[in-house]
């Protein structure tokens, strides 16, 4: 058997797991591991400028490819800097393995240099974590980490490795386990047939149905099944912020996003529905508005891989625990004859339901309201221009705030894994590094980061990493000189007192990116919007930063009215409510 050091075993285990990229930053506790990285050429290491960005890069890589992202950081500050990115991945169920160095075993607990209890610090935001005790257990621990991160409801797993375990002078027999079984961890592989049949009965007799699909469909690679099921049933469908792209955004059956900034038609259809079929979604507070007023007429079927998601906030009438793809496969088979035998009455009820929905649609709630005599650019128009020049085909990452909502509303995604944003944690600073992770995975694809001048500055140091690795990302900075979403809430709830939502002393972004060797454009008038965006997208070998000056007074609408509102209670534009 081959004899390897702990550090070499770790890198070999990653290779044997099929890892091709690791995002990281070296430091004292991982020096042995970095030496092992140096002495091999199968895994490409991407050196970031801040560990938070390493986790977001791995996250973007995972969201776009479906394969787990891998992060390597040192102990102490390296590990704690990774926390925000781990929490981001945890909230959105993203498979990720984070390897952190730890101080030498005999120093643990002595407050030694760069020591942090990483397993303790990360505990509430990981799917699981390991503190490796002996070098011999490194291969099996890595196998378990990847198995846990990628199976069931995916999530981040931390593997904390004390420095002495990677000592190059201690050699061990290396073999990588082909499979791993854990008696305490057995994720569901199929749904309960009885529950599925109950769901079929409800789906066959409902009159005002609504399919509500979330990020679980994307993480569970069940987009094709969702499309088949929705087409077969002929029901209206909405996607959550995390589920956009799971069903084609330009399809007639698609009512747009639901929730806080969902469309008038999607939120109304949810409210009036008599059967909500939730698929890989979790009834987040940004969806339901006031829980007691949520979907008052609907029975609820809830399909999810994670039993804790079911009946957590909204009680499911028919819970189904299982992987979305296999359960939907089974349902499609059972539903086909039911749909073929649909009564005339039911067909008529469904037609009437669609008629009602079309009435809501006619509101055209996303129409951009503007004064044509002014040249000011609306932020929505910036997103529309991106959509047009990329023909709706780009990978789009976003940061967090108004621009994120505008991107979700005005860039319809026709495919899964193309829309990448931090939905659960809402992490500003996510967009640029996430885009880098996508670009690393898909070097020839168009990757656009729609951001704002607030968010971009939270990880702007990564412009340097982009130079080093030649990542030709297109950054669209929807620049309103303010923290737009904070300002919107202050306008609506604090009588316009803009407490610290104003971004004073902004840099000249064009000059800034040029200093990193990138290309920068500034757009200040409407007629420049499309041509300059097109020019930016045409530059294939360079990062281009497009600084778009937009109307700072714009708000995101529709917007659910809280507190005490239901899903049909919305602000439709400034001062206009349902």
């Amino acid at each position, binding site marked *: 058997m081959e004899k390897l050091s702990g550090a070499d075993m770790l890198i070999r285990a990653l290779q044997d797991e099929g890892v091709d990229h690791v995002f990281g930053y070296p430091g004292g506790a991982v020096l042995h591991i970095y030496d092992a990285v140096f002495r091999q050429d199968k895994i490409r290491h991407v050196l970031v400028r801040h560990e938070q960005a390493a986790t977001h890069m791995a996250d973007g890589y995972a969201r776009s490819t479906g394969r787990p992202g891998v992060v390597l950081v040192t102990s102490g500050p390296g590990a704690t800097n990774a926390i925000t990115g781990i929490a981001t991945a945890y909230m959105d169920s993203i498979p990720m393995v984070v390897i952190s160095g730890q101080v030498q075993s005999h120093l643990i607990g002595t407050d030694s240099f760069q020591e942090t209890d990483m397993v303790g610090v990360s*505990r509430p935001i990981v799917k699981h974590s390991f*503190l490796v005790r002996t070098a011999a257990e490194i291969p099996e621990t890595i196998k378990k980490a990847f198995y846990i991160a990628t199976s069931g409801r995916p999530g981040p797993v931390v593997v904390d490795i004390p420095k002495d375990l990677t000592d190059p002078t201690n050699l061990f027999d290396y073999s990588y386990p082909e499979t791993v079984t*854990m008696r*305490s961890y057995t994720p569901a592989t199929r749904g309960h047939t009885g529950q599925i049949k109950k769901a079929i009965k409800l789906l066959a007799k409902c009159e005002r149905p609504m399919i509500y699909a979330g990020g679980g469909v994307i993480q569970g690679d069940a987009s094709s099944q969702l499309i088949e099921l929705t087409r077969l049933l002929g029901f209206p469908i909405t996607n959550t912020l995390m589920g956009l792209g799971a069903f084609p955004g330009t399809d007639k059956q698609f009512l747009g996003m639901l929730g806080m900034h969902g469309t008038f038609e999607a939120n109304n259809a949810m409210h009036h529905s008599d059967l909500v079929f939730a698929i890989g979604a979790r009834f987040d507070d940004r969806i339901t508005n006031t829980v007691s007023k949520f979907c008052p007429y609907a029975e609820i079927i809830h399909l999810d891989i994670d*039993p*804790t998601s079911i*009946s957590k906030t909204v*009680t499911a009438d028919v819970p189904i625990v299982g992987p979305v793809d296999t359960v939907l496969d089974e349902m499609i088979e059972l539903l086909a004859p039911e749909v073929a035998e649909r009564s005339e009455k039911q067909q008529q009820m469904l037609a009437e339901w669609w008629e009602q929905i079309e009435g809501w649609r006619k509101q055209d709630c996303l129409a951009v309201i503007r004064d044509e005599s002014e040249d000011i650019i609306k932020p929505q128009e910036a997103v529309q221009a991106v959509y047009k020049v990329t023909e709706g085909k780009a990978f789009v990452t976003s940061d967090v705030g108004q621009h994120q909502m505008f991107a979700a509303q005005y860039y319809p995604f026709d495919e899964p894994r193309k829309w990448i944003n931090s939905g659960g944690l809402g992490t500003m600073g996510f967009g640029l590094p996430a885009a880098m992770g996508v670009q690393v995975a898909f070097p020839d694809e168009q990757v656009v980061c729609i951001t704002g001048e607030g968010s971009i500055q939270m990880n702007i140091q990564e412009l340097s990493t982009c130079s080093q690795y030649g990542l030709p990302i297109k950054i669209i900075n929807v620049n309103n000189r303010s923290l737009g979403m904070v300002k919107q809430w202050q306008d609506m709830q604090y009588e316009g007192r803009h407490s610290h939502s104003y971004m004073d002393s902004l840099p000249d972004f064009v000059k800034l990116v040029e200093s990193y060797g990138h290309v920068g454009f500034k757009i200040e008038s409407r007629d420049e919007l499309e041509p300059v965006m097109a020019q930016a997208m045409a530059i294939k070998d360079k990062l281009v930063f497009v600084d778009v000056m937009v109307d700072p007074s714009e708000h995101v609408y529709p917007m659910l009215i809280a507190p005490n509102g239901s899903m049909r209670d919305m602000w439709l534009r400034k001062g206009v409510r349902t």
Partner: protein
Amino acid sequence: MRRIISVLIENEPGALSRVIGLFAQRNYNIETLTVAPTEDPTLSRLTLSTLASDEQVEQITKQLNKLIEVVKLVDLTEGEHIERELMLIKLKATGAQRAEVKRTSDIFRGQIVDVTQGTYTIQLSGTTEKLDAFLRAIPESSVMEVVRSGVSGISRGEKVLTT
């Protein structure tokens, strides 16, 4: 409602902190907690009592099950079960009080496990209610120290919690 949940967890460092962390993180209540290895040294059995509604207890059991190191669990209060708690109590016992304390202890089937000229240390086991009743039965001013183990429990009949 008071619930007693028994959990088999991998006997590994850090496993207990995940259970306790979960309760803090999800804002669940823990009244008592006991933990010790089982006849299988790779497993620990943890028993906790909590005050929770039916909906809450459903979430608690599901969230516990989701922890990777949790092998199996049962809500003992769902079926017939036996619950016991151990209490050690140090009491002032002088003069006429000495006989009175002894008598009360006997009524509750307590054992005096340590004696000094001025004190008795009594060991008492039973349900939480019984131990509470004992504490009510003795004069409050005589109590010097109370140690309670928290609830342990087991199902009645042939039902067992094993892997």
